[in-house]
């Protein structure tokens, strides 16, 4: 039987809608500006105070942001509960750790292998399990996290329980951060160079790339699978492939964070990849706001910096930390900055207030305030087309 050649072109838009807000108060532009200001502040900071402690905790915090943005793809966009995400970080950290200490590669050269290893890990864990629904998936990922950790603890090549020591910092084509850099009379030591590297490359890749991914075709597919998998199938979206893609991309980001962490700490051991850390990263995403870039950044900063600020309370700090979390979740159940939130003084459209027209409203037809609001907008639109 011949296939029908019928093709349905989309009709051209016919309704003139209110224009989008332009200028500084457009939500995307405003948020971009805020991001730029924060970015510059972070870049200037080492000139103000370059204490090793501050640089060290800020580098860790930024690596947490990379990690949390990776998990945000899996949990926030695709809605897959992953309780073993730190395993991908372990894969990345161990791969680059082994290649640099035992094979004499540079960090930079190890990146392609790390990416391949993470894709393989994502496929191995995601391939068979992503056909499961979320509860089972959570249990499998929890198991996977433990398997990776225990494997690392028992293998010779990974250094057993003591792990790998003496991992070199980043280097490119023979030039290492260790050599330092002198620019205009200011000497940057290796820690500060790594700080800038994480700031420019890590944050650039994690924040910019992941938030852009969330807005494109694949991002919409992920969100549709999260909101209603059956319906997204009815839109022609292959749910399994889409979820596997989320897993692989999340794994790559996790692995990248792992190599950064290995270079930052110069030593890794199985204890760095316990379940607690998976839970902390998950907490960063859930606390900040699933699928929300500003939310996840806030969450990651909170999770990584709060224990430092609570250091005075010594053993009590994790208890305080827990209480704080419970309080936040009570008052902001969708996270500190939910994905759909827009700052109250920003709006997307210039919608003019139209005075209610007389003798149009039928009593009882519009009984909720939302109906009224829509009706106002509808009138505004009709005025516009006439």
């Amino acid at each position, binding site marked *: *039987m*011949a*296939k*029908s050649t*019928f*093709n*349905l*072109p*989309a*009709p*051209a*838009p*016919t*309704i003139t*809608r*209110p224009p989008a807000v332009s200028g500084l108060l457009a939500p995307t532009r405003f948020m971009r500006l805020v991001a730029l200001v924060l970015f510059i502040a972070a870049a200037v900071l080492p000139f103000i105070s370059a204490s090793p402690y501050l640089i060290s905790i800020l580098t860790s915090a930024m690596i947490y942001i990379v990690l949390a943005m990776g998990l945000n793809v899996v949990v926030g966009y695709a809605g897959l509960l992953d309780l073993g995400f730190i395993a991908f970080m372990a894969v990345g950290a161990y791969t680059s750790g082994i290649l640099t200490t035992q094979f004499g590669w540079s960090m930079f050269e190890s990146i392609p292998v790390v990416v391949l290893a993470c894709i393989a890990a994502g496929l191995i864990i995601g391939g068979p399990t992503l056909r499961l629904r979320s509860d089972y998936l959570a249990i499998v990922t929890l198991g996977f996290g433990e398997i990776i950790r225990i494997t690392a603890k028992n293998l010779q090549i990974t250094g057993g329980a003591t792990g790998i020591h003496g991992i070199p910092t980043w280097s490119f084509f023979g030039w290492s951060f260790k050599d330092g850099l002198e620019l205009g009379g200011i000497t940057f030591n290796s820690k500060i160079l790594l700080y800038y590297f994480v700031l420019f490359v890590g944050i650039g890749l994690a924040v*910019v*790339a992941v938030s*852009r*991914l969330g*807005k*494109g*075709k*694949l*991002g*919409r*597919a992920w*969100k*549709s699978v*999260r*909101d*209603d998998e*059956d*319906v*997204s*199938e*009815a*839109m*022609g*979206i*292959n*749910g399994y492939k889409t979820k596997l*893609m989320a897993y692989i*991309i999340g794994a790559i980001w996790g692995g990248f964070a792992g190599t950064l962490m290995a270079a930052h700490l110069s030593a890794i051991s199985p204890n760095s990849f316990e379940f607690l850390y998976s839970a902390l990263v998950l907490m960063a995403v859930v606390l900040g706001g699933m*699928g929300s870039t500003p939310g996840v950044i806030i969450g990651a900063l909170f999770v990584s910096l709060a224990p430092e600020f609570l250091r005075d309370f010594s053993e009590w700090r994790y208890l305080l930390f827990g209480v704080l979390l419970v309080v936040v979740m009570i008052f902001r159940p969708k996270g500190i900055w939910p*994905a*759909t939130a827009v700052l109250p003084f920003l709006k*997307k*459209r210039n*919608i003019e207030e139209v005075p209610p027209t007389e003798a149009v409203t039928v009593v009882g037809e519009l009984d*909720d305030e*939302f*109906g009224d609001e*829509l009706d106002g*907008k*509808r009138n505004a*639109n*009709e005025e516009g087309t006439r």
Partner: protein
Amino acid sequence: MSDVSTSADAGSAAVDSVAEPAAASQFAGAPILEVKDLAVSFGGIKAVNGLTFSVHEGEIVSVIGPNGAGKTSAFNCISGFYRPNQGSVVFDGSPITRNKPSRITQLGMARTFQNVRLFKEMTVLENVKTGMHTRLKQNVFDAMLHTPRYRRSEAQCTEDARGWLDFVGFRADDELLVTQLPYGEQRRVEIARALATQPKLLLLDEPAAGLNHNEKQELIELIRKIRNLGVGIVLIEHDMGLVMEISERIVVLNYGKEIADGTPEQIKNDPAVIAAYLGEDDDE
């Protein structure tokens, strides 16, 4: 015995203004959807039991039947959500029995759901854009780097989505979250999203449920408008007025079996249909 279509006359005058389609007897070609001997059972219950019907391009076919007659189950089998135990479904020349729903949509069949099922955490525009998923030409790197190809495909996608929203008569702000819309508007968005997949055949599962009188009239106009684009439509509906007014053919199910298939006029007078809806006459 009373007529099945007691509520049919209500408001039919209002619809006369809609342009009548070309001749009703234009369906001579090969059918776009052919369902043969379809059956599915859950445990011991035969939800669909030997259903056979076909739909042509640009035809409006209604599937009616009492509650629990197997209408939605049949829909789910056709669109790939249930795996039928027996029978075959041929869509546009390719057998699609037991295919994945996403594959069936890619071949050109779209559907809506009995209770509106939109993506709740997405805006109206994003919901409709989701329908265009398979047609968008952009990959992961395009999205991360914002290449010209990405910008072009997103701009086209936005314009097409707006076009479909305007087509279904959605006039509210398309940047709203779908949960912020009243129910009737959500129905429109769902139809726009299904149309955005650019289907050859559209399955509507009770599109009039929960709509008021005016909204139903608008729905009738909309369904005719979609048909006039050349899209075949299969409709499950309980509102007999709407069904009688709009359908070119009606398939009646009861207990998973087809009991009648014909024009609205034939169905109205079919004794088996009347019996199914009103019960058998006892010996008087």
